[in-house]
């Protein structure tokens, strides 16, 4: 019988790592707290940079779960060290004794209501990037009548010390530009603004997407962090920012505002970290043995990481890291005579 490995978190990182571990001859036990596998990817409609449908990435993974024991709607009750093994107790009463645990706990979208000045949860026409994906996925038109002007606010909960997230969430810039393009494709008459601090178009084809947004779609980019959103008597929004390149305050009446919520450490990650006695960074993400040299390995025997549990990442980066983590686990388990 093959050796068990516990994988905590059934998003792309967890699923991909489980498949790789299975291919390497192990029996992964994949734990997911939500009712379905897939994480945030399951919610998303299309992916940057080329607009591939998210399910075309996820579905093949979900159809290839043979040999993987997975439990949804399940959380971790406790993890204890026993000699060179970990005893993992699950909320469904089961428990597993394994030598290696992979933490692929992912991220939570930044809670937009924490940026009080943007009025999410107070002003009806303020929505999040995830909600916009829901709309795209449902193929539904915006729920408000007469959307003529829409804005995308970059860096919501990213690069923001007051919101407790100092880090750049890496993917929101290109997501905003992707969503802006999609919006223009569906509603060419709508004026679309993007409020950004820096456009971090770091990946291949990202800059092309930006150029397309400018040239083909006429998306208007305003360099300035949105300072305040308020609501007019008819429910429309006033967005205030500085047009920093112009050097003057800017006030735009909007029919809808999309907040590009960044990646925050997933709820419960720090609790898991406590259970296995590994450090959590100042930013709330897990800390690998070496952020450059060993990004999938925890500074503790038998604990491994994959995906956004160690910081914001794109899907391809996550999948790559999942494979790397599986290999790291394999090597760890095959190396004899550990202390």
């Amino acid at each position: 019988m093959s050796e068990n490995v516990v994988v905590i978190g059934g998003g792309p990182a967890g699923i991909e790592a489980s498949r790789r571990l299975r291919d390497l001859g192990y029996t992964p036990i994949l734990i997911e707290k939500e009712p379905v596998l897939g994480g945030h990817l399951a919610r998303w409609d299309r992916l940057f940079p080329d607009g591939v449908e998210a399910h075309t990435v996820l579905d093949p993974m979900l159809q290839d779960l043979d040999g993987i024991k997975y439990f949804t709607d399940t959380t971790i009750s406790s993890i204890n060290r026993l000699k060179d093994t970990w005893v993992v107790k699950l909320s469904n009463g089961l428990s597993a004794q394994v030598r290696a645990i992979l933490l692929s706990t992912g991220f939570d979208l930044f809670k937009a209501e924490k940026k009080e000045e943007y009025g999410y949860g107070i002003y009806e026409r303020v929505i999040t990037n995830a909600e916009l994906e829901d709309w795209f996925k449902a193929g539904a038109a915006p729920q408000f009548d007469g959307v003529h002007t829409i804005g995308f606010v970059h860096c919501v909960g990213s690069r923001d010390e007051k919101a407790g997230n100092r880090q750049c969430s890496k993917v929101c810039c290109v997501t905003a530009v992707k969503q802006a393009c999609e919006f223009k494709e569906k509603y060419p008459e709508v004026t679309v603004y993007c409020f950004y601090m820096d456009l971090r178009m770091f990946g291949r084809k990202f800059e092309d997407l930006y150029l397309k947004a400018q040239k083909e779609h006429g998306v208007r980019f305003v360099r300035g962090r949105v300072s305040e959103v308020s609501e007019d008597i008819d429910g429309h929004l006033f967005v205030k920012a500085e047009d920093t390149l112009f050097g003057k305050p800017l006030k735009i009446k909007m029919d809808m505002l999309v907040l590009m919520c960044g990646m925050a450490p997933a709820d419960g990650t720090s609790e898991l970290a406590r259970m296995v006695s590994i450090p959590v960074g100042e930013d709330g993400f897990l800390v690998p043995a070496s952020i450059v040299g060993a990004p999938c390995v925890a500074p503790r025997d038998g604990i491994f990481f994959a995906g956004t549990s160690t910081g914001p990442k794109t899907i391809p980066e996550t999948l790559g890291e999942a494979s790397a983590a599986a290999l790291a686990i394999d090597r760890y388990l095959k190396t004899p005579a550990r202390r």
Partner: protein
Amino acid sequence: MGRIYERLAQDYRIKEGLKACISCGTCTAICPAAEFYRYNPKKIVTIVQSRDDNAITELLKSDVIWYCGECLSCVTRCPRKNAPGLVIMALRALSIELGCFVESEKGRQMLPLMHALQRNILDYGYCVYPKTFLYEKHPEYGTVGQWTQEHMEDVYERLGAHLGQVGPGALRRIPQESLDELKAIFDLTGATRWMDIVEEKSREKAAEMGLSMEEYEAQAFNQSSSCHLNPQE
């Protein structure tokens, strides 16, 4: 790092108010002064952050540091926990210390301000006092204000104030020993010295401008050139 910047960095308001600005513009976006003056707090912070002594000295002599209304609305929004308003306050303090304030029209307003406020505090214990708040200088006080001023004793008494009286209550006469304490604090902590600097530098500047001190003070109080304002749409 230059000497002027070093001196500025001693100010606790710089320590509190300037960590590392990312020029995102949230401060300017909601700044009341940025809307009604030719003013941009972000630019000022950028200059201070540059630690360029020449540029900072330019600032100290310019009008722009005097546009801020110190409402500190900027503090709420900064994602880097900076406080542009506090940076401005530190710049203004240094401008006074170095005597740079007389080089700008708005800076020269220090003289009437200093006179009004320091005298009020030392004479009455408060920054504002009805007997020195005159309709002639404050026409917006309105017809009701004019009326209040004309019937000061009656009005304040009816409203329950103890104008000029002994004991607790609004507008009471502050005991002399308390006013003396304020004076001692002024002498010890630099307020008196500030008054001296402002008066001396203003006298020099008035002479340079060919004005008497009274004319200089009146001009500072009343005159505003259009260069401070944004162009009409």
